């Protein structure tokens, strides 16, 4: 394997939580717990899990929008974990983001031209050059360039997401974090945006971290998939391996929950019982044991290691398979 573009080692993020009351007890929520993975150049890594499992926080940590508690983030061999905002700025043009909510991710008071052109303006480009580049970008994402003087409210959700993608592409980045980039869109529009992302990735040789709760969507675009549960990674495998032969019971349950179009095979698989436990007080031992059909006494006391079960396949379970 060549040198990874993004390398994460032991990344951990705690959020402090204030409990109400005079003698405020400080509790902490471990959103991301000792996460390690690498993304190779040109690869699309999918990151899936239920809401609240910390997948969005992972994206924000890599973007340096939140400070990690411990661990190391390297981009193209450079340690960016503790770079301050000024030192980070030149690197930001290589690392971009497409957010989930196409409504709150575009400033309602700025014209499309100014939204897409903002990263260029930050580099001191002049107005005519920015307009040329914005027109070119709008062409790439399939929006007519005449629309550049409009405000975001004049666009539909899918079009807004195209604007967000154009903004992310403006600086010709090498790596884009797609945080639930299609989850807020209608299913018919989702396919269009996913195809657009796949085209762009090929065209510009991009590396993507694709965060989603929707396994079907992830399967469509990703080479490898990481599954998270309560801040920990429970399985990491190639797309085909993960779907045909998932090793972790949580992954199996997630795959079983993907809607099945064929009524003949429908309804025979057990859905996952129970709620996701509170990340403020995660269960001891294996974090999944409260909901696991396979749980035994050992799972309640001993934390399973994240180990390589087969070449290139990692799993965190005492009884994988």
């Amino acid at each position, binding site marked *: 394997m060549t040198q990874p573009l993004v390398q994460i080692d032991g990344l951990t993020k705690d959020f402090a939580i204030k409990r109400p009351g005079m003698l405020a007890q400080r509790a902490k929520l471990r959103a991301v717990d000792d996460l390690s993975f690498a993304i190779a150049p040109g690869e699309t890594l999918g990151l899936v899990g239920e809401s609240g499992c910390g997948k969005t926080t992972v994206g*924000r940590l890599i973007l340096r929008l939140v400070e990690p508690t411990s661990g190391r983030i390297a981009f193209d061999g450079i340690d960016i974990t503790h770079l301050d905002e000024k030192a980070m700025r030149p690197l930001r043009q290589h690392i971009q983001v497409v957010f*989930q909510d196409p409504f*709150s991710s*575009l400033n309602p008071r700025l014209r499309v031209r100014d939204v897409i052109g*903002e*990263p260029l303006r930050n580099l001191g480009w002049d107005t005519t050059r920015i307009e040329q580049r914005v027109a070119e970008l709008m062409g790439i994402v399939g929006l007519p360039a005449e629309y550049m003087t409009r405000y975001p409210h004049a666009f539909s959700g899918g079009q807004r997401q195209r604007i967000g993608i154009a903004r992310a592409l403006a600086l010709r980045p090498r790596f884009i974090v797609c945080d639930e980039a299609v989850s807020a869109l209608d299913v018919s529009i989702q396919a269009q945006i996913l195809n657009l992302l796949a085209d762009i990735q090929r065209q510009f040789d991009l590396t993507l971290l694709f965060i989603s709760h929707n396994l079907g969507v992830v399967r469509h675009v990703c080479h490898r998939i990481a599954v998270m549960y309560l801040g920990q990674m429970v399985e990491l495998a190639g797309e085909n391996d993960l779907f045909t032969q998932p090793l972790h019971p949580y992954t199996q349950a997630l795959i079983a929950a993907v809607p099945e179009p064929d009524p003949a095979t429908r309804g025979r698989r057990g859905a996952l019982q129970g709620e996701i436990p509170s990340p403020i007080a995660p269960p001891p031992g294996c974090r999944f044991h409260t909901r696991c059909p396979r749980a035994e006494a050992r799972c309640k006391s001993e934390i399973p290691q994240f180990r390589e079960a087969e070449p290139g396949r990692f799993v965190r379970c005492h009884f994988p398979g």
Partner: protein
Amino acid sequence: MTVQITAPGFWQSEFAVRFRRNRNAVAGSIIVAFVVLVAVFGPFVAPYAYDDTDLLGTWAEPSREHLLGGDQLGRDILSRLIVGARVSLLVAISVLSITLAVGILMGMIAGYFGGWADGLIMRTSDIIFAFPELIFAILVAAVMGPSKLTVIVSLSIVWWPGIARLTRALVLQLRNELYVDAAIACGTGPFTILFRHLLPNIVAPLIVRASIGVGFIVMAEATLSFLGIGVQEPEPSWGGMIRDGLVGLRTDPYLALFGSMALGLAIIGFNLLGDGLRDLLDPKIRDR
């Protein structure tokens, strides 16, 4: 496909239509426009100079020569009210400009950066909030001596923390919006984020706050002038005229009466306009 949005003229715009339907806003803007016109052009149409004394006409009753009568030195009350409008508005505009500039800047810094800057700015404003504003103004007057400048300085010191707190709260609401994260992620600096992304999204509530504030500032200036620590003779101010009128209130009530009416009219105008604008611009009560 998006629908072609054509830009309508201002009078056809949604805001203008809703403005015209709002009685408070219409009444308030008519009164405010009247007061402003008087303040700007009044001195050219006033029948007498504001410091023209006529010792034979002291406490004159309203007549053809003096439409609203004369004061204790026989000066024309109408002329003095007109010039007083100019003084009141000048003070209000000065205080408003200073408090908005300082308050918005401080509020944005406190809300966006948080940490020690937030602590310093908010604790400073707490200290100022702890003083009743009149006591504070008297304190400033004791140091600076009574004058128009004293009124402007003391009211500015007392008023900026309110603007700063409002701005801080608005910025706190917006700073978790994704477009702020997107701006950080594409390398936008903090002050560009504040002025380009956040300020345009918080102007509406600030306009409402400012328009309601004008009424209070006019009132506060009149109070300080009434107490003798504001605008000084012979320059007229509504507060000072009401005080002078109190001496002869039983026998010659016109000075205090017309002074109070002018002050009341201006304050009602600004408050109606402020209430109307709040109804129109505040998204929380907008769709009632």
